[in-house]
């Protein structure tokens, strides 16, 4: 817990994301260039989803930066999920620095057609 809090204070970049929703769930794409699978940390705590990743760049010894648009080697972003999402069915895939997350909706939250009966 304590360690977690100190880590939270470390500055991090906000990765750009695309989020879309269809009838069965939510798909999220996040750009995390430089983050490998072993340095990606996905966490669901209650209804909070945290995406965190450390960049790992191959840098030659003694390199001095002359121009830096990416100045922090870390990404972090949190999202609030809603109840109808089933966090047990979370699929994650990281490919060339792009994270794809698929969160299914719980069965009861999926749209159903309701038959109207003659009355």
């Amino acid at each position, binding site marked *: 817990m304590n360690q977690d809090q100190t880590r939270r204070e470390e500055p991090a970049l*906000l990765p*750009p*994301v*695309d*989020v*879309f*929703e*269809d*009838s069965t769930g*939510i798909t*999220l*794409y996040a*750009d*995390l*260039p*430089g*983050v*490998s699978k072993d340095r990606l940390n996905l966490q669901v705590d209650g209804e909070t989803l945290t995406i965190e990743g450390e*960049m*790992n*760049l*191959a*840098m*030659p*010894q*003694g*390199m*001095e*930066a*002359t*121009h*830096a*648009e*990416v100045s922090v080697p870390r990404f*972090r*972003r*949190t*999202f*609030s*999920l*809603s109840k109808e*999402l089933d966090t047990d069915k979370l699929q994650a895939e990281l*490919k*060339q*620095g*792009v994270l794809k997350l698929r969160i299914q909706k719980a069965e009861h939250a999926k749209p159903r057609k309701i038959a109207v009966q003659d009355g």
Partner: protein
Amino acid sequence: MEFSLFPRDVFAELDRLQREVQQAFEFSPSIRGVGRRGYPALNVGGTHQSVEIYAFAAGLDPATIDVKLEKGVLSISGERKAQLPAVNEKASVHVNERFAGRFHRVVTLTDDLDPNAVQAHYRDGVLHISIKREEAAKPRKIDIQ
């Protein structure tokens, strides 16, 4: 549902805002120095032996990235396809921040580089280009006789 299911983190948003304001006042070092809003973001560094360029371009097929070095100007171009679903499908877009489309960025390099000693690697969504300095330009220790 009226609002996004993924509302943005307020503190992260403030953080981003602060960064953007900061960047807006930043001085661009070169006429080609697109300091902000350029895609992909670039970092440049150097050692006595080489110049290292890092382009943060996630999700590309390395075969489609075009890297050219011409008269001391390095250019990186390509295209990133949108991954959003088509409009007619039964899907709604809540957040759309990721870059999509053609991109082109150039870096003016110093003139002590060897155009025949360029290496480019693409790993975890980062394009890393390493250009060696010319032998004559490397620092040498001079013996006193």
